[in-house]
């Protein structure tokens, strides 16, 4: 017998050709968590920058934070927290083999993610309108500490926003795979991992809220 499966490669490649499907969900989950750690440390680097400059420019940070729209920040927190709930409900429904329900919850999560980005868009464009934008005129004329605050704000919420976008893309792909039956009650790991990623995005936001919006 030829071992073609091994060259094409499924997790733990070699086994695939030899005997029945060999799957290591715990191994995959280990890999997923390791990936989450890298995400955590990626934001961690920015948190270090934030901590240093907050320490250095405490007063300016408080001053600059007044410019941010608290209502929008808190609303977005509620939106993301709720999207985390709909995400776990989607996983739970799939585990219980309720495919349609799982897809509905996943759709709701996707919708809430959209909602988050729309609110973010209005927030950013309001700032942009006032010339507060990385490289913008007004931002450069601000005192160094306040400029630092806004640049950090844009870098951190920007990186977070990119993660939201990526999450939405992954949700779309997973929805297609649930519909086609590749992701199902007996193999729901892909949806579960999407959930893990999404909760991490939520987790980062939970820290961004007090660091930027509640700093006065």
């Amino acid at each position, binding site marked *: 017998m030829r071992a073609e499966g*091994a060259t094409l490669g499924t*997790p733990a*490649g070699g086994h695939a050709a030899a005997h029945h499907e060999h799957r290591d969900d715990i191994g995959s989950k280990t890999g997923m968590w390791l990936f989450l*750690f890298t995400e955590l440390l*990626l934001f961690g*680097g920015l948190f270090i920058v934030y901590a240093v400059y907050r320490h250095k420019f405490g007063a300016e940070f408080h001053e600059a934070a007044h410019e941010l729209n608290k209502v929008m920040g808190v609303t977005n927190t509620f939106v993301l927290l709720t999207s985390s709930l709909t995400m776990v409900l989607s996983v739970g429904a799939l585990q219980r083999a309720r495919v349609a329900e799982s897809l509905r919850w996943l759709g709701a999560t996707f919708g809430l993610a959209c909602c988050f980005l729309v609110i973010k868009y209005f927030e950013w464009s309001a700032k942009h309108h006032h010339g507060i934008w990385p490289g913008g005129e007004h931002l450069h004329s601000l005192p160094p500490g306040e400029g*630092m605050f806004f640049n950090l704000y844009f*870098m951190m919420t920007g990186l977070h926003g990119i993660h939201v976008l990526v999450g939405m893309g992954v949700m779309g792909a997973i929805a297609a795979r649930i519909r086609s039956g590749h992701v199902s009650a007996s193999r729901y790991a892909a949806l579960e991992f999407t959930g893990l990623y999404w909760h991490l995005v939520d987790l980062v936001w939970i820290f961004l809220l007090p660091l930027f919006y509640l700093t006065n």
Partner: protein
Amino acid sequence: MAESKTGPAWTGSYLQDYGSRRGLLAWLTTTDHKRIGLMYMAAMFAFFTVAVLLGLLIRLELMNPGMQYVTPRVYNSLFTLHGVIMIFLFIVPGIPAVMGNFILPLQLGADDVSFPKLNLASWYVYIAGAILALMSLFVGGGVPDTGWTFYAPYALRSGSNVSLAVFAAFVLGFSSIMTGMNFITTIHRLRAPGMGFFRMPLFCWGLYATSWIQVIATPVVGITLLLVIMERALGIGFFDPARGGDPVLYQHLFWIYSHPVVYVMILPAMGVISEILPTFAGRTVFGYKAIALSSMAIAIVGYMVWGHHMFTVGMSDTARRVFSILTFLVAIPTGIKVFNWMATLYKGSIRIEPPLLWALGFIFLFSIGGLTGLVNGALSTDIHVHDTAFVVGHFHYTMFGGAGVGLFAALHYWWPKVFGRMYNRKVANWAWGIFMVGFNLLYFPMLVLGIMGMPRRYADYLPRFHGPELVSTVGSWVMVSGIILMAWNLVRAIKRGAPAGDNPWGGTTLEWQTTSPPPQLNFAASPSVTTGPYDHTALRAAAAKEAR
């Protein structure tokens, strides 16, 4: 399980093509960890050759005082490129991506790593990063001239193509992370039945500690490098003193990654040495648990010492004292390893073979590297030698004398397993000797020059430094001759070497239980483990039986 394993995949070599794909295409689409290891080796040694040539050029310019061959601007680009290629394209992937990929699953008794596709992807990401790095030489503002460290604020202002080179380093980081994730998962999930963590070969322990550093530290430099790009593109001012930013913060973030990463280079090499010594001493390793756990200790302590790269940049005195004390802590687990290695050799039945020579060379050179490290780690002496040729000598003793020689040792040890052929051992011994002489001629004068006050990264120098600089340049020619002889000998063996047999060295770890070269799926029967990794009793009994 064993009965289902029949057919060519378990009898022929992994070097043969299976399935419908043939030749180059079969290699480029493979998910076999052994083939991916060799693909990494081919790419890495191509870059290594380039970087060695750049190094020779640097030495040539420094042979005599005055400017002979290049302009100072070109000289800056030479050492930047030499550093970037050697660090990001050669030593960091170095042993993990080549020997780790090849040997780790074999030593664990597994068919492959946990995520074979991710493994292949990591190679492509590595190649993509390398291409970006090469592109930065030819497009835009010209070859980067910042040094491999990309220090702010110069990296923010340099007209050369820093952004692309920085982005290349960012991409290469992904490749490193993928390998790390793969190895951690593989070690957790795919050990052979009976192989607890403390029955794992020490090379696997080295890779385990390494992989954690790759996963946890690399993202920090990733975001730092992205910030440099944003700074150059948008002027966000995080590291720019003109906008209230702090260039020293860049150094903090850079070394938070780049210090731990020197342990990514050295820990697998230490693992290799821990494999070679018991084999050629014919006895079990002394202090197995101490060596295993000291790898983890080095990984953890390695996170707490980055400040020793910054003693002269104006850090607070408290920070300097704290980092200096913490730096000395690294010497403890390192010392534990060295003493246990020595104790392993003590009263062993030692056979002098090329891998053992390289391993002993490692211990000798790395000890010099480590001890000169203490000079840098001590606050007061570091003020004197900081940014001098002493530092250059020190890190070449650790990085090249340690990680590089560790890789050469690994090549000589596992070459017969990888290709099933034995190289000419006499030539290998000669190559080792020439290399060792050349190495010390090349780098020891740098230690002297540094103490005398010769700054690093200078294209020109005062006439009083001429003697040692000349010796160093001649040493570079001797050392490179040794490397060429070694490479010729190894490459020649692939086709012309005598068949090596499954276990030419009398090794006790699992990779020696399969054929050389191993079959595509590694083991005809899945191995199980009942003893520690370096138990020679079975081998010795078999040898005694044969003798009778």
